């Protein structure tokens, strides 16, 4: 058989061309260099881009933070986190505290030039309450029975029941009536492509790379020093701190504990600690055996070494109740469950369990535990693995499960199919835990019910005396701790990181950008 001749010279040219092209491409792109990448803008990173820029449909924290820049409410927070007028100028509470007359500012214009009037306030409230809107923020105006425009700059609000401090609840954002056609607001309305607000920044555009550009609103009454703000989506948390170090970003809303050391030592980055009202907990499913029994729950409380769980993931305060340590409602007299195997053993024995070769069981059935955690909760994996190890060595059979957000919500909130759940509650400065601990609370998925607690929560809601409220809620803390529907874990110290080029920074612990007027950037 004749073997084919060696490849002709043309083959080598084909070969060379095939392999040289990509190298030329690479070299060209490498040398496509020296273009200044920094403008005058502030770029900050979020884990997930806002889906829609409309405060009526806010679902995630990134959306809430962006809305803080683009929209404003009747009242806002000052640096001491007390309510001060924003779009409102002043307000007068009626004698029976069931109505509020709000005088609006007359120097406010929407981003498209239209003047701001009371019609906008009335429209916003009506639309949020409207059944057709399907707003996620309905709860924020549910307490308002009726809103009426008395004139172009005066609104009368009538409440469902007497309110002590309605200004604290008037923080919701106002929308322009003239941009909507009907009484209900729909997600599909054209407003989603051209959102218009009264805030210091106006929506410029959605960019191709899923980032959002905002530009300063020229006619805003408070001049801002930073002309452009860009929200970038950096979904991979491993990169967020790196990008800040490389000066591709100017701000990180929340620094991961593992990146703290590196950022602390860097002279181009400033760390700003802030106190979020969020705490971690380990919730029991009170609809299930044996978690129905308080003795068993308390026993687990004595077997969980909370400090050891916290240490590998960061720093913070361990808690004994449903408030942060600096909260006025925190009851410092309540001691934490001490880590004590003997106390736990006696509790379990009183519930009928016996330790058989290291394993706790009752009537031949070993005590099994299923811990469910939420994948997106940062460091929850470490905590759960550590917890599993602790509880396994204490003599329980522990399984763990990590679910993504939608599956988790369906399993825990809807189906109540879990034993223990590791999660976190976040509250705004009102710290209203009613939804979580009242027997009729919308977020009380662990089915906790204690009549005394219900009474106290109602009292706290209805009273106008702050001392009475404090006493009631501190008692709630004590009762909830004793009942142990959940083991309260800790609040993590939160830090934001900003480039040193940004100065005079004050951060709002919940909305981040509330005080952006003061920020200066070189």
């Amino acid at each position, binding site marked *: *058989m004749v073997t084919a001749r060696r490849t002709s010279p043309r083959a080598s040219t084909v070969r060379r061309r095939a392999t040289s092209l990509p190298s030329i491409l690479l070299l060209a792109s490498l040398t496509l260099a020296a273009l200044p990448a920094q403008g005058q803008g502030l770029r900050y990173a979020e884990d997930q881009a806002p889906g829609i820029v409309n405060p009526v449909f806010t679902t995630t924290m990134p959306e809430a933070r962006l809305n803080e820049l683009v929209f404003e409410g009747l009242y806002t927070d000052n640096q001491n986190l007390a309510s001060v007028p924003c779009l409102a100028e002043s307000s007068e509470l009626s004698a029976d505290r069931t109505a509020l007359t709000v005088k609006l500012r007359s120097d406010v214009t929407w981003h498209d030039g239209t003047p701001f009037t009371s019609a906008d306030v009335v429209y916003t409230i009506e639309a949020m309450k409207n059944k057709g809107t399907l707003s996620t923020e309905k709860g924020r105006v549910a307490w308002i029975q009726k809103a009426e425009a008395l004139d172009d700059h005066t609104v009368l609000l009538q409440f469902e029941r007497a309110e002590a401090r309605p200004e604290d609840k008037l923080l919701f954002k106002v929308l322009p009536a003239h941009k909507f056609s009907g009484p209900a607001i729909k997600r599909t309305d054209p407003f989603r492509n051209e959102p218009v607000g009264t805030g210091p920044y106006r929506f410029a555009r959605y960019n191709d790379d899923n980032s959002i550009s905002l530009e300063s609103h020229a006619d805003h009454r408070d001049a801002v020093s930073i002309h452009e703000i860009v929200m970038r989506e950096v979904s991979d*948390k*491993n990169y967020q701190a790196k990008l800040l170090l490389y000066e591709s970003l100017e701000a990180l809303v929340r620094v991961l504990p*593992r990146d703290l*050391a*590196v950022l602390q030592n860097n002279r181009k980055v400033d760390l700003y600690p802030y106190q979020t009202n969020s705490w971690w907990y380990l919730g029991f499913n009170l609809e299930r055996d044996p978690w129905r029994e308080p003795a068993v729950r308390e026993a687990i409380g004595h077997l969980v070494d909370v400090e*050891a769980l916290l*240490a*590998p993931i960061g720093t913070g305060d361990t808690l004994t109740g449903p408030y942060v340590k600096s909260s006025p409602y925190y009851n410092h007299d309540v001691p934490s469950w001490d880590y004590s195997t003997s106390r736990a053993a006696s509790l379990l024995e009183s519930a009928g369990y016996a330790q058989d070769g290291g394993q706790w069981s009752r009537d031949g059935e070993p005590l099994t535990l299923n811990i469910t955690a939420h*994948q997106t909760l940062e460091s929850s*994996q*470490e905590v*759960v*693995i*550590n917890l*599993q*190890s602790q509880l*396994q*060595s204490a003599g329980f059979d*522990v399984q*763990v*499960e*990590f*679910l*993504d957000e939608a*599956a988790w919500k369906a399993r825990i909130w809807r189906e109540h199919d879990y034993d223990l759940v590791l999660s976190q509650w976040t509250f705004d400065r009102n710290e209203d835990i009613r939804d979580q601990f009242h027997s009729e609370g919308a977020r009380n998925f662990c089915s906790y019910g204690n009549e005394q607690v219900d009474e106290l929560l109602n009292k706290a809601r209805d009273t106008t005396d702050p001392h009475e409220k404090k006493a009631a809620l501190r008692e709630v803390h004590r009762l909830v701790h004793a009942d142990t529907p959940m083991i309260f874990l800790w609040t993590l110290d939160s830090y934001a990181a900003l480039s040193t080029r940004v100065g005079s920074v004050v951060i709002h612990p919940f909305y981040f950008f509330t005080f952006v007027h003061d920020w200066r950037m070189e």
Partner: protein
Amino acid sequence: MKLTAWLGLILLMIVGLIGVVTGLLPDGWLPYDIVADVSPSDAGAAPSAAHWLGTDHLGRDVAWRLVLATRAFVGPGLLACLLASVIGVGAGAVSGFLGGPIAALVRYLSTVTASIPRFVLVLLAIAINGNSTWLIGAVAGVAYSPAVAEAVFSRIDSLQRADFVLAARAHGLGPFRILGYHLLWVNCRRMVGRHALNLFGYLLLLETTLSYIGGFGVMEPQPSWGNMLAFEFGYRTDNIWGVWAPALAIWVTIFCCGLVSDALAERRRG
């Protein structure tokens, strides 16, 4: 086979053996407890006598986890290869040998499965139950079967009219024997073997990628090379082996799959 191919085969067999043995042994028999090994005080320790490859950032022994991680993909990998081979060979043989409307239907189903990119199919399937590597293995096997089916089909189709088949028919050999032995075993086995090795490597890659990107695949605290990699990424510890040990393990295993697959390749002459 050449030396490199033999080395590759031996390595693969070692990995496979470890995977099968550790998978079948009940948990208590191993001198290592996955759950109890957590010791945050030892986090990120460099290799030492106690920990041959050091520890990860929760203080767990990397070497042991590396070894135990084999059981996470060997089983599902074998399942995937089995499914792909059985479905693929079955579909290919039926449509190649029989023809007619059955063949058309089988080919239609095969085309539909092939038109959804494999990764996307696995992604959608595990949205149902992300915790199960067996499910990933099964779906990957099913998603890969059209490739095997196509290969078997075109091979059988082209051999239908070959002389030896006519001769076999003339001798009165039954269709099952012709199909089973002459066509499938003699002519297709190397090809199916290459596909199986290909798929095995692909499954390992898939599990790794899913663990890194989305936290799917093998769930903690069970180790898998993919989730070990994902767990340590982004943590600055003194122990580089936390990240590099699983990465190298993955790299080497898939490379060996390729070596053996190459050795099985047929070089057609004339």
